[in-house]
């Protein structure tokens, strides 16, 4: 997600797909020959047409040659749905021809003649050959060798010669070539592929019930491409490639990396005086905070309060959520007396909502960082980190790296971030963080809980951790009122509060002492164990030791 890419050398031809250009350091090298291969339906034809129409809009002249039985009319019918398609560019700037018959009648030399003649005649700067498998098959069938092995070798030789001649024509004319080849499964080696300048592999594979589309740049001469596989989608806009977010991190060598994020060391308050006091004046600037709690404890409210306070101070904020629509959030704001709508209209709060289904992590990250950069966001609430987690379900080994990349980048962009994390247990002695990898990259943790107090339910708020800072460890009550959020004085230490009762038995203080409560993380999950009895059932997670808690209590007595 580097915003500025220096002009690439050698000169490039933009693919018309921003994410792919990013992977290719600006696009295809002009005058080179590339192959895009993949199974039927992978998106090769779409990608090629997108390249042609994008190029045509920028003054290129594209020649699209089919070697398929499918008619151009049929292809155009599908293309008309796509946003990049513009019939006015045909035939002057995008030109479709079929070379099937020439190839069938006279083989690869005839195809080459036809291509050379038409490239020069049309002054084409982009050439697509759709259906290279047909060329290979016809080349094979025309090979005169009787022996099957020799026939194959002969065919390969012809095909390599064809690629070589095509490269010569294109380097003379400056025409960039993309050959499209259908393969049911990726081929590890094809003799002719040693000749081409680059290979793109497109795949669409089922994962459960959903299709995952990926693009892999297997070879790219003269380009330091972003290696590995990247997600892509097919939308009405065309092919949209999302480079893997981990690869878009700024490297330590990046000059800007050495710069301190703006606001680091400052405090970012919520505008709830007693809570801000608990935090030592607010959250540390540019830090990441987890707001942990079960459903209905006010995580989202705390998030919108954080954004509203930022807006009041003129700091642009972004709500990036999965579960609550903007309209519902505006209503919530009204109940708290927060003028969210007014802030949104003033451009001080942006709401971005997406369904938590079938999302792709790189797409989410792309959307998030695009908005953060565009609006120069200073305060961010990611409401429901599980939405991001779900987008990583297919890649469990990416979880840690992805969250680390996201958090680092947000810090670099001087954004103070809140992640809300919903815990499974509404009541009970343990708090389990259901998202792996987040706790390791967040510097601050705030816990929200339901508690039972004199037969009524109250909300409890406690600060578990603040980066490199002193903070108030007192457990307090959080109240949601029409005048806003309020944090009360310390709860009566003699009260038996539901889940924390065992932690502070008859204690003189309701402090969440570091020595008696630990926020623990393990490879698979993180738990905050708030009682000794629960510790027995807390499995492998680190736990609060009951004797220790009692000891603390005794000492105070």
């Amino acid at each position: 997600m580097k915003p500025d890419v220096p002009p690439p050398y050698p000169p490039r031809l933009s693919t018309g797909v921003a994410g792919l250009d990013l992977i290719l350091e600006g696009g295809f090298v002009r005058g080179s020959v590339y192959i895009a291969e993949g199974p039927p339906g992978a998106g090769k034809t779409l990608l090629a047409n997108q390249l042609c129409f994008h190029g045509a809009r920028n003054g290129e002249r594209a020649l699209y040659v089919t070697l398929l039985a499918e008619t151009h009319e049929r292809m155009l019918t599908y293309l008309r749905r796509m946003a990049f398609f513009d019939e006015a560019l045909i035939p002057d700037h995008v030109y479709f021809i079929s070379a099937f018959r020439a190839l069938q009648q006279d083989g690869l030399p005839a195809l080459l003649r036809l291509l050379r003649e038409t490239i020069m005649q049309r002054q084409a700067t982009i050439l697509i050959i759709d259906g290279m498998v047909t060329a290979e098959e016809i080349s094979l069938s025309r090979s005169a060798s009787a022996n099957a092995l020799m026939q194959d070798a002969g065919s390969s030789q012809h095909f390599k010669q064809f690629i070589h001649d095509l490269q010569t024509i294109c380097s003379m004319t400056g025409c960039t070539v993309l050959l499209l080849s259908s393969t049911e499964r990726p081929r590890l080696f094809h003799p002719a592929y040693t000749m081409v300048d680059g290979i793109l592999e497109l795949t669409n594979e089922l994962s459960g019930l959903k299709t995952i589309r990926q693009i892999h740049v297997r070879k790219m001469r003269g380009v330091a491409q972003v290696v590995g596989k990247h997600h892509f989608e097919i939308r009405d806009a065309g092919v949209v490639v999302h480079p893997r977010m981990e690869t878009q991190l700024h490297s330590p060598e990046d000059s800007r990396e050495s710069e301190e994020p703006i606001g680091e060391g400052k405090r970012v308050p919520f505008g709830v005086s007693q809570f801000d006091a608990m935090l030592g004046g607010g959250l540390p600037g540019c830090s990441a905070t987890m707001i942990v709690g079960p459903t209905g404890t006010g995580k989202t409210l705390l998030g919108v309060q954080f954004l509203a306070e930022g807006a009041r101070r003129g700091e642009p904020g972004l709500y990036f959520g999965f579960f609550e629509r903007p309209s519902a959030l505006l209503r919530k704001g009204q109940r708290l007396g927060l003028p969210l709508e007014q802030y949104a209209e003033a451009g001080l709060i942006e709401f971005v909502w997406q369904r938590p289904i079938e999302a792709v992590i790189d797409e989410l990250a792309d959307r998030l960082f695009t908005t953060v950069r565009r609006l120069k966001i200073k305060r961010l609430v990611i409401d429901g980190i599980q939405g991001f987690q779900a987008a990583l379900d297919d890649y469990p080994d990416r979880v840690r790296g992805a969250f680390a990349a996201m958090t680092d980048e947000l810090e670099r962009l001087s954004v103070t971030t809140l992640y809300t994390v919903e815990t499974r247990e509404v009541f009970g002695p343990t708090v389990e963080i259901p998202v792996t990898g987040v706790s390791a990259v967040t510097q601050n943790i705030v816990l929200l809980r339901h508690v039972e107090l004199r037969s009524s339910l109250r909300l409890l708020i406690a600060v578990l951790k603040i980066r490199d800072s002193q903070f108030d460890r007192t457990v307090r009550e959080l109240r949601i009122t029409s005048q806003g959020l309020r944090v009360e004085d310390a709860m009566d230490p003699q009260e038996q509060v539901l889940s924390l009762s065992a932690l502070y038995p008859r204690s003189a203080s309701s402090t969440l002492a570091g020595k008696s409560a630990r926020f623990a993380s393990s490879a698979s999950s993180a738990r905050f164990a708030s009682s000794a009895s629960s510790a027995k059932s807390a499995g492998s997670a680190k736990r609060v030791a009951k004797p220790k808690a009692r000891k603390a209590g005794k000492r105070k007595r």
Partner: protein
Amino acid sequence: MKPRVLIVDDEFGLAEVIAEILCERGYDAVIAMNGKLALAEMQQTPPQFVMLDVMMPVMDGPTLLGHMQQDPRLASIPVVLMSSLAESSFASVRALYREFVRKPFTPEALYDLVERYAGRPESA
């Protein structure tokens, strides 16, 4: 004598289907894969009617229309331009063809065009 129809289209599958339909109806249908081959064919044996695609390798439809205008033997041969694009894309050569038909078209539309411009075969 069968009316001679020249089908000029690089999409050979489509050209073959048109030719077969016309042959079944009693026409003498000939295929050329591009404008250059079509011009040579016409100069050798002028057809009664030409169905002409636009985008083709070597020589495209509009260029062939220009050549036909230059040749007195070919200038009066009726041409129907066929394309999957809208007719507005070819405004610059509108005076050089009789009619436009958008691909895909039905066999009935084809019969109608051929009968109007090449006449009805005696056997039909």
